């Protein structure tokens, strides 16, 4: 009991000190902490790069790139507590748990720190806004567009998903079906499920090629599926006839792009994500409104409009092809 009072006293003192520090520092430098799920992950290193880019544009911003060493909520709470103690101006976090971080982040907001979440969100009470990398309609549109871009005369396409019960996959596929009429001549002939298993996805891709001899593209909005389809198309000697596209990671897809089985694919760009999160944190710390319907600018990425839950979608997934795969394959 005694010790607890003592620690809270110390914490209070350091906090007070921190707050004085903040006010003194805010005049010359705004300090924005980019908190990630865990250090040492290529995706987040790239996001930090984007954050630095934003800081460079804004001028008087210092980025503190930090996070726990493993992807745990406890680790992130420690990091948040130390950031509160340091008195940073804003925290932009990709959360390991939507709920567990809420009390710590609330404490931060009580101290006047701007808190936003990005990539992986925090529950509504624990942040001022959440930045999604993309949105269901944007992803649905992108995966069809990727296929349509490389078939000027239209043709048959098929979707190879993860499991038939995967919520996000199904939402994307629904969104894709909705935009289908906008793409003339693109004919979605089948949706099959590879369960995110290499062997099953491979077989399903083989099945698609056997059932639809005129197939022009396989769209796989899942990393296992797109790789397995790419391998199946390569093994069937149909590179050039069938374009495998969808969502994948550059490091995993480099081989498929090199072989030509995949002309282009998409995934959110972590650099843009870190950049946008920093821009938003900066704008909100400088007093931008965060109510529903509020529009907040984010530099070269345009602006976002918040919905009822205080979330917003950044942009279309970023397209990768032979021109930029070399640059990104070492990043994530």
């Amino acid at each position: 009991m005694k010790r607890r009072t003592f620690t809270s006293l110390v914490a209070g003192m350091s906090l007070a000190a921190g707050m004085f520090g903040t006010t003194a520092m805010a005049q010359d430098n705004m300090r924005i902490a980019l908190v990630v799920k865990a250090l040492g992950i290529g995706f987040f290193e790239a996001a930090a790069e984007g954050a630095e880019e934003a800081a460079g544009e804004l001028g008087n911003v210092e980025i503190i790139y930090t996070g726990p060493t493993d992807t745990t909520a406890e680790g992130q709470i420690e990091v948040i507590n130390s950031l509160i103690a340091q008195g940073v101006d804003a925290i932009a976090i990709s959360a390991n748990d939507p709920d567990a971080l809420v009390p710590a982040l609330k404490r931060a907001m009580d101290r006047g720190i701007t808190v936003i979440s990005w990539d992986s969100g925090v529950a509504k009470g624990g942040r001022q806004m959440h930045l999604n990398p993309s949105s269901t309609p944007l992803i649905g549109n992108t995966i069809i567009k990727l296929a349509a871009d490389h078939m000027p005369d239209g043709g048959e396409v098929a979707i190879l998903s993860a499991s038939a019960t995967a919520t996000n996959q199904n939402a994307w596929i629904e969104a894709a079906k909705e935009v289908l009429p906008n793409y003339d001549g693109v004919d979605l002939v089948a949706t099959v499920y590879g369960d995110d298993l290499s062997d099953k996805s491979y077989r399903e891709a083989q099945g698609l090629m056997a059932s639809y001899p005129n197939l022009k593209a396989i769209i796989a909005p899942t990393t296992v599926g797109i790789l397995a389809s790419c391998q199946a198309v390569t093994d069937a000697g149909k590179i050039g006839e069938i374009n495998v596209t969808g969502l994948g990671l550059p490091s995993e897809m480099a081989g498929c792009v090199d072989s030509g089985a995949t002309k282009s694919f998409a995934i959110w760009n972590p650099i843009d994500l870190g950049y946008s999160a920093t821009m938003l944190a900066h704008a909100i710390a400088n007093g931008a409104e965060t109510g529903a319907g509020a529009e907040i600018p984010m530099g070269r990425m345009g602006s976002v409009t918040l919905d009822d839950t205080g979330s917003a979608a950044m942009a279309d997934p970023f397209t990768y092809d032979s021109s930029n795969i070399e640059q990104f394959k070492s990043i994530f």
Partner: protein
Amino acid sequence: MKRIFASRELLLLVAIALVLGIISSRFPAFITLSNLAAVFNDTSPLILLAIGQMIVILTKCIDLSVAANLALTGMVVSLINISAPGLPIIVTLAVATGFGACLGMFNGILVWKLDIPPIVVTLGTMTIFRGTIFLLTEGKWVNSHEMSDTFKAFPRTELLGLPVLSWFAIAAVILFTIVMTRTTLGRAFYAAGGNPHAATYAGINVGRTQFWAFTISGALAGLTGYLWVSRFAVAYVDVAGGFELTVVAACVIGGVSIMGGIGSVPGALLGALFLGIIANALPVVNISPFWQMAISGGAIIIAVVLNAQANRTKGRVILKRAEHAT
């Protein structure tokens, strides 16, 4: 007893022919020779694992760690390939088989020397092996552009019209048919599972026999691990997730008794082929994914019922003369 085996295999052949007939009525191209060869090639990993699993099940054990063993060995050879891309394929094969065998021996030692129930041992090692992959890679994938071309090309290389992957399955079927029917070790597997007490009196060390069963299963899983990651050109933690159950299912459908002592290499082969044909046919006959699971599940239940029937007849054998007398 021999007649039961024969009839079971015949029954499976009929079932396979029937399934092929139904499929060809909906999708004629399925039964072309080239497609059947492709189906066999796709089923080869399952055949390799099913043979190993059959031997383990014969000795009244079960090896749930085969898929995890496959994934770990696949990852290990992939990592070796990244650091030493020039390594001859024969060395990779030896490393894969040897490493897999070591993992199998680990299972075997625990079952033999510590007398822990095999289901618990392999459930544990299954998690350990998958966890080890994560520790080795921190969840990162080994992707096709990181693997050397020879490493990826080997299982696809055509030899007398069939890919090397298929030849491995054929070789394993021949080798283990001989081992199971013509060697003392092979007969010991049957004895150790069929009647452990009698086997002990006959001078067979049941524990050591089980140890060798696990070692063989591990070696086959390791070998398959390399073939798998090179075929799909990717290695990650969840490679072949849940595949151990497909392997057990192939054995059960192939007439291998979960109680031990009954089973044959041709049975395991046909069981694997049955599942392989269904898995390859369902995508082309355009059936909902939920039905696919139901059909595989139905086949397993039918097989188990048939197995139970077979076991019951076996129990009556001793009383046959008494039965006739009444």
